[in-house]
């Protein structure tokens, strides 16, 4: 066996602390190593060529590369081997950067550690076996979870490329958070005016199947072929018969807090969430319906002229196979109830920004008038408090919610338009306007008269009637108190509580704040760790509309690329059973997270004849190579290809 060792300088990243030249010399004396060299940038074209040249000239059969993390460039080097006619799994990477040079100072010991990492990699590659992949066909149908602007945009983009999409939304209507907004920064477009046409387009597009009032029930499979069960919740209204006349809603006697109006208005049990809802037909909220809860009422059925009310309707499970998935599940806004300093919940005139947003809207609870909820009168002095629960490690979230600076500026502008004589004061920690035309928008808010005061609010004091906002102005260097009529809290954007469970089904991971993690913060911003599952919008982190739409397009293009390619390569590093030592105990079966293991019967020749016995069998199409079964197997019969017991023990022996 002829092994070649290649040590990368990574500029000064590795060479700065590791003596790469002596390392390369020393590596020559390792078993089976016939060649070694050090190259300044191994991943560069020159570096790759030098590997190819050495493979050809030195007749190398296997390659060890001392470089950065395999996560970064394993694929790059696998391609190099493939181009040189070797099996791509005949390359092993020793991580000299993240695991050595970046975490140690320059010195002999660091170089020694680097050598041992190389030594370990050489030991492993000696036992490597060639691995092959199969190509599998891709189901050219996409699933988009979440019907806000992110989901709508990605569904439209995929549909426009000619592929079929199922758009699943949990609530009775498309629209999401954007539908709740009155105007959008930095152009002050009316939110509904730009969103509603997209909602209608999504619902009427021949390639989009819209499933509102539906949830994801179960997920199995892998990239190219996800088998997904969707629960279509019973709408209790036959939407084929319903004309959307609204008689049922009008007559329904139930009164429930309207979540679309941030609970500041009531809705009925049979309802459409808002006037521009798509589909514009009601559903019955069974948890709050008198008939479903108490067995009496049926008013809606009596008044329905189309006989569309159907109390017998049941939840339906839709099973479908998808090639790729986009998660676009959105966000929630923090409600700082019980936080004494701001008085939210204690005084009706302390409201959240989303509540003010609904107040601005002409179809909102006040019909577009901004009033103090306690008196119904117009406020004279409005105080906006930014960073409520954002950048707050004590009670809220450590992160910045990204959009509050701009929407607060928007609110001051809209307020000036509606109530020219009303003063607005904005208390802030920093103003962050990173985005095109955002700084100019902030400037516009200032020049229109909003008074920005640098300092957070310590307390909103109230005697039950009046509100007094206490803060400290950093410019003047004194404490400041403002007699306010209305206090608006720019409350933090937070991850939806339901996102985590959903993400788990898809194998996507959440970060410490509950937002979904991208596969790489810079280079794979819309990918998850699961191939074929992508992210768009605020489920990935606080995001504004332009960035959300951008992400939606990016995620859609990843799906379109996948479908255009038409096939995926199966994972070569799957589990493998050595049937000769498998006892058939099937301890591995329950630990497999994807259900890839089942029992198989094999025939074995024994002295005196042939017996049939049970062993474990692995479905390579389902196996994701996690290795749980290899740890559970008592006999060591289960091996992960590319990471066999023999290979791993060889590594350990050389450490």
């Amino acid at each position, binding site marked *: 066996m002829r092994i070649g060792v290649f040590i990368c300088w990574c500029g000064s990243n590795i060479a700065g602390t590791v003596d790469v030249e002596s390392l390369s010399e020393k590596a020559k004396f390792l078993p089976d190593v016939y060649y070694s060299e050090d190259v300044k940038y191994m991943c560069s074209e020159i570096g790759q060529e030098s590997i190819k040249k050495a493979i050809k000239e030195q007749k190398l059969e296997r390659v060890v590369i001392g470089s950065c993390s395999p996560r970064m460039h394993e694929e790059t080097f696998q391609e190099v081997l493939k181009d040189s006619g070797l099996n791509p799994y005949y390359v092993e990477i020793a991580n000299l950067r993240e695991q050595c040079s970046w975490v140690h100072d320059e010195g002999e010991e660091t170089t020694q550690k680097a050598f041992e990492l190389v030594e370990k990699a050489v030991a492993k590659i000696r036992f490597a076996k060639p691995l092959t992949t199969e190509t599998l066909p891709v189901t050219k149908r996409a699933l988009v979870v979440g019907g806000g602007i992110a989901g709508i945009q990605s569904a439209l983009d995929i549909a426009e490329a000619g592929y079929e999409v199922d758009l699943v939304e949990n609530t009775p209507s498309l629209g999401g958070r954007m539908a709740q907004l009155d105007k959008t920064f930095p152009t002050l477009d009316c939110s509904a005016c730009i969103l509603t046409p997209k909602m209608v387009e999504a619902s009427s597009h021949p390639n989009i199947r819209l499933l509102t009032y539906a949830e994801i029930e179960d997920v199995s499979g892998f990239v190219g072929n996800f088998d997904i069960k969707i629960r279509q919740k019973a709408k209790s209204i036959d939407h084929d018969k319903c004309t959307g006349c609204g008689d049922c809603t009008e007559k329904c006697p139930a009164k429930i807090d309207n979540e679309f109006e941030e609970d500041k208005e009531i809705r009925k049990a049979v309802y459409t969430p808002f006037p521009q809802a798509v589909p514009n037909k009601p559903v019955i909220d069974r948890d709050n319906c008198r008939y479903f809860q108490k067995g009496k009422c049926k008013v809606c059925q009596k008044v329905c002229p189309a006989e569309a009310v159907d109390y017998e309707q049941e939840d339906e499970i839709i099973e479908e196979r998808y090639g790729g998935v986009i998660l676009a599940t959105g966000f929630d806004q923090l409600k700082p109830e019980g936080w004494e300093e701001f008085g939210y919940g204690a005084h009706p005139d302390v409201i959240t920004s989303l509540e003010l947003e609904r107040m601005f809207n002409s179809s909102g609870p006040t019909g577009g008038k901004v009033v103090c909820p306690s008196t119904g009168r117009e406020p*004279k*002095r409005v105080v906006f408090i930014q960073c409520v629960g954002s950048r707050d490690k004590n009670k809220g979230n450590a992160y910045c919610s990204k959009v509050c600076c701009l929407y607060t500026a928007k609110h001051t502008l809209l307020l000036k338009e509606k109530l020219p*004589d*009303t*003063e607005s*004061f904005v208390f802030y920690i920093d*103003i962050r306007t990173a985005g095109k035309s955002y700084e100019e928008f902030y*400037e516009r808010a*200032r*020049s*229109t*008269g909003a*008074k*920005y005061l*640098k300092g957070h609010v310590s307390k909103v004091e109230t005697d039950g009637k009046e509100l007094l906002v206490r803060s400290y*102005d*950093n*410019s*003047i*260097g*004194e*404490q*400041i*108190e*403002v*007699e306010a009529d209305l206090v608006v809290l720019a409350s933090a954007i937070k991850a939806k509580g339901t996102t985590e469970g959903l993400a788990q089904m898809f194998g996507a991971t959440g970060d410490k704040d509950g937002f979904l993690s991208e596969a790489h913060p810079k280079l794979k911003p819309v990918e998850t760790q699961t191939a074929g599952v992508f992210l768009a919008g605020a489920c990935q982190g606080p995001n504004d509309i332009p960035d959300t739409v951008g992400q939606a397009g990016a995620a859609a293009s990843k799906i379109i690329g996948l479908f255009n390619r038409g096939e995926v390569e199966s994972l070569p590093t799957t589990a493998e059973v050595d049937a000769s030592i498998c006892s058939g105990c099937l301890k591995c079966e329950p630990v497999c997270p994807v259900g890839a293991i089942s029992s198989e019967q094999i025939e074995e020749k024994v002295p005196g004849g042939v017996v049939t016995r049970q062993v474990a069998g692995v479905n390579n199409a389902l196996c994701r190579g996690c290795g749980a079964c290899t740890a559970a197997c008592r006999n060591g019969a289960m091996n992960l290809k590319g990471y066999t017991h023999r290979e791993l023990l060889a590594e350990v022996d050389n450490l």
Partner: protein
Amino acid sequence: MRFSLNSETSGTKKENAAILDELEMITEEKFSNCFQCAKCSAGCPASEYMDLYPHQVILMAKLGLFERIFESKSIWICTCCFACGSRCPQDLDPARIMEGFRLIALRKTESRPEVYPFKGEIPRQAYVAHYRKNFK
């Protein structure tokens, strides 16, 4: 120290609105552009003698706290060297704003003698400011 913002300090109050209008007319400066970076105060060679820094004067004017500006020494200490205006990222000229306050103070001298700290003579800056009034 603590200050209060209420219906008395309100910028929409007629009296305050009139002062701000007059100031903006005299100085041709738009106060609201100021975002309190305090670069003016950072570079002001006379700041060590001031009780209110230039950026504080501008913020107080925006908040309608005119009493405190007229009571301060700062507006008389400013020498109109224009170091502030040459550096302001919002292209304001705080020195002209100081001039504006001096002019208004002088116009009010008879009714409010307490704001006029120079007995018997008008300070030099006021003369200079007078000639510079429409120079921008």
